[in-house]
């Protein structure tokens, strides 16, 4: 029996399971590794108990009980796989499929559909219903920017309704009409206005709500899945990057109970579009007037190193300014700092081009989004990407550049020209600017040499979110064109300016970072996967 008053012990399929008081039978079973089929139950939504798929046999109970909305009690004996239970699951499936159009060939959910999966386990019967008698409903109804509703496929589990009511609080969806005419919809079919509506396609267990952006793009079984972290704000929501043949097709939330639970905002969800938009930097190049002339990597690195060393020789190391980035990984910032302070020897180092360092933990809404649009502001702060003794911060650097005392700027993946008011004028007067960037943006246009680097979907590393949770990102696809991993580029620059770096893979650089930077002391790279590690 359970110890004290906080836990209960019950027996599920012959296994003794101890869970906290108040846990449902379904969750107790899942904690013991026993899967109970369900439609309406969702880990991060309040229970409803409408689908009856999760019914199980409890000894001494007069009939089967839905396990998602019955609390596990001390001494309960539960059977999840008896003939009676299987029969109920078959019947539930038969009722759900009664009016289902079975248009799997054109349904985007096929391959990750609960109906399909359960039918393989418990169905496999011939329909007793004539095709012509099926109730026809509206198909392919557009509900807002992200969602398409197909009412024929709906199983009325109300997950979406509960999501809009309890999680995003937009109250957009509801169940209308009664009995066989029962259907999900918005008031007068008006579009959903909800910055979290993309999640509706994820919570829907069948193909009733599907994503408009992913519609017909790729069958899900062709997709490869790489765990990563969203880089659209300082929350650092955990995601899966779904990609195939080097092309990203979608981001889906990866459950992390401490960060984003099962959710992801629409802005983050679609942030991969920008990375495949064609406005990426693809070739190392130098600017002559307003045209960029591509050049080989070696030549470009040689030229950058040569110009920087010449500036140091003629005007001193303080004439070089280094701008790090809250969008770069911890490893990149660490190596960049090494480059600036050791290889070049300049004290001018800063990353604060926006208000991120003040707003990183301020919420934009009630759920996930934060005002700081950078994924790694805390990491840049922890890695000490600020001016050392006597150094200039970014404002002072730009001032000095405008006055002519700072002769060269090296900018790491941050659109300074757009983020800082008046930066464009200062950049225009700087004799030499190197930009290690992803996008062909305003800063790239102001730079003299552009070095294209990999985006967060194209490299390994760690981001530190607003909670100081260090989380791993993994490489999913290759960078476009000749773009390279920033770690390799910075390491090459260090080597060419007389410094030394041994290994440039993210794990080795992280090891160095953890041994040298107090904030990251003793952290293990391998431990940063999964739910991440919070720094103390």
């Amino acid at each position, binding site marked *: 029996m359970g110890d004290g008053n906080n836990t209960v012990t019950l027996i599920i399929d012959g296994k003794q399971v101890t869970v906290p008081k108040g846990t449902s039978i379904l969750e107790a079973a899942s904690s013991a590794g026993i899967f109970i089929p369900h439609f309406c139950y969702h880990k991060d939504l309040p229970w409803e108990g409408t689908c009856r798929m999760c019914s199980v046999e409890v000894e001494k109970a007069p009939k089967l009980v839905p396990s998602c909305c019955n609390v596990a009690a001390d001494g309960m004996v539960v059977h999840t796989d008896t003939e009676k239970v299987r029969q109920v699951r078959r019947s539930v499936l038969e009722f759900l499929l009664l009016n289902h159009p079975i248009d799997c060939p*054109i349904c985007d959910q096929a391959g990750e559909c609960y109906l399909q999966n359960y039918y393989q386990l418990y169905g496999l019967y011939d329909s007793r219903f004539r095709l012509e008698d099926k109730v026809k409903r509206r*198909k392919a109804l557009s509900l807002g920017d992200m969602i398409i509703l197909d009412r024929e496929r709906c199983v009325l589990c109300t997950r979406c309704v509960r999501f809009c009511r309890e999680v995003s609080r937009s109250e957009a969806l509801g169940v209308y009409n009664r009995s066989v005419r029962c259907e999900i919809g918005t008031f007068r079919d008006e579009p959903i206005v909800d910055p979290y509506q993309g999640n509706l396609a994820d919570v829907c267990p069948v193909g009733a709500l599907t994503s408009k952006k992913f519609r*017909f793009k790729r*069958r899900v*079984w*062709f997709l490869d899945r790489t765990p990563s972290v969203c880089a659209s704000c300082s929350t650092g929501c955990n995601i899966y990057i779904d990609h195939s043949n080097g092309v990203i097709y979608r981001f889906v939330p990866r459950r992390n109970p401490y960060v984003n639970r099962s959710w992801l905002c629409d802005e983050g969800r679609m942030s991969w579009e920008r990375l495949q938009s064609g406005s990426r930097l693809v070739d190392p190049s130098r600017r002559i007037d307003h045209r960029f002339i591509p050049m080989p990597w070696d030549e470009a690195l040689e030229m950058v190193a040569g110009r920087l060393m010449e500036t140091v020789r003629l005007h001193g190391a303080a004439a070089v300014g280094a701008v790090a980035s809250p969008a770069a990984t911890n490893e990149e910032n660490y190596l960049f700092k090494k480059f600036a302070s050791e290889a070049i020897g300049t004290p001018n180092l800063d990353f604060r081009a926006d208000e991120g360092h003040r707003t990183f933990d301020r919420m934009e809404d009630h759920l996930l989004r934060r005002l700081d649009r950078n994924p790694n502001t805390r990491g840049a702060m922890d890695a000490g990407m600020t001016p050392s003794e006597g150094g200039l911060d970014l404002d002072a650097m730009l001032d000095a550049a405008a006055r002519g005392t700072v002769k060269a700027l090296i900018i790491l993946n941050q659109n300074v020209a757009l983020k800082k008011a008046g930066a464009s004028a200062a950049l225009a007067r700087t004799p030499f600017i190197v930009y290690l960037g992803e996008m062909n943006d305003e800063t790239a246009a102001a730079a003299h040499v552009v070095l294209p680097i990999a985006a967060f979907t194209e490299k390994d590393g760690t981001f530190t979110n607003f909670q100081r949770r260090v989380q791993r990102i993994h490489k999913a696809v290759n960078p476009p064109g000749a773009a390279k991993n920033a770690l390799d580029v910075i390491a090459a620059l260090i080597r060419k300016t007389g410094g030394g770096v041994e290994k440039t893979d993210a794990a080795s650089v992280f090891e160095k970072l953890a041994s040298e930077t107090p904030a990251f002391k003793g952290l293990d790279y391998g431990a940063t996967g999964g739910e991440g590690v919070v720094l103390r």
Partner: protein
Amino acid sequence: MRIKDPVSLGFLIETVRGMGVTLRHLIRHDLATISYPEKRRVYSERYRGLHIHTRKPDGSPNCTSCYMCQTACPAECIEITAGEVDDPAVEKAPVEFKIDMLRCIFCGFCVEACPCEALIMSKRSELGMTDVREQVYNLERLMTRDELGKLEPGDVGFRPYYDASRASGKEILIGPGGKEKFSPALRKLADIEKLKPR
């Protein structure tokens, strides 16, 4: 010439006998070889040759882009690009459908996987070409290449789901026996839906 050596005499006898076989075959008519390509064999009804993409009665491709053939294909020679169709009774249709005949191993898995009988096979096996690029057949070519117009019912090859009882000459290249796929009620619903603003 006199032959003293009995071994050489054996050779001579065998040579004459061999010539006899040759002469006998010269006048035979039931030989294993034929004068290809002037003469051709009758192929099996299930012969797996060059693919045919069937059409709906209105001429549009029968395929719904479910990607079953691409999934089943062991040679990875099929490439489909799906697109959206305004008609809510159809929804999804291929924008492009390519089969690389140089990679294809003519196993017929794609035909077996197809839920719409959109892909069937012909008995044609000669795929000569002057340009490698010609061997990637696109949707247009799979549906409407010249020879398809001249096909007789017996010329179609592997077609496992064909219901011969519904067959008539006209249906060779038209999908599942020209069957009405959607009930009149749904057609009507679809028409109403088209009038509503999206």
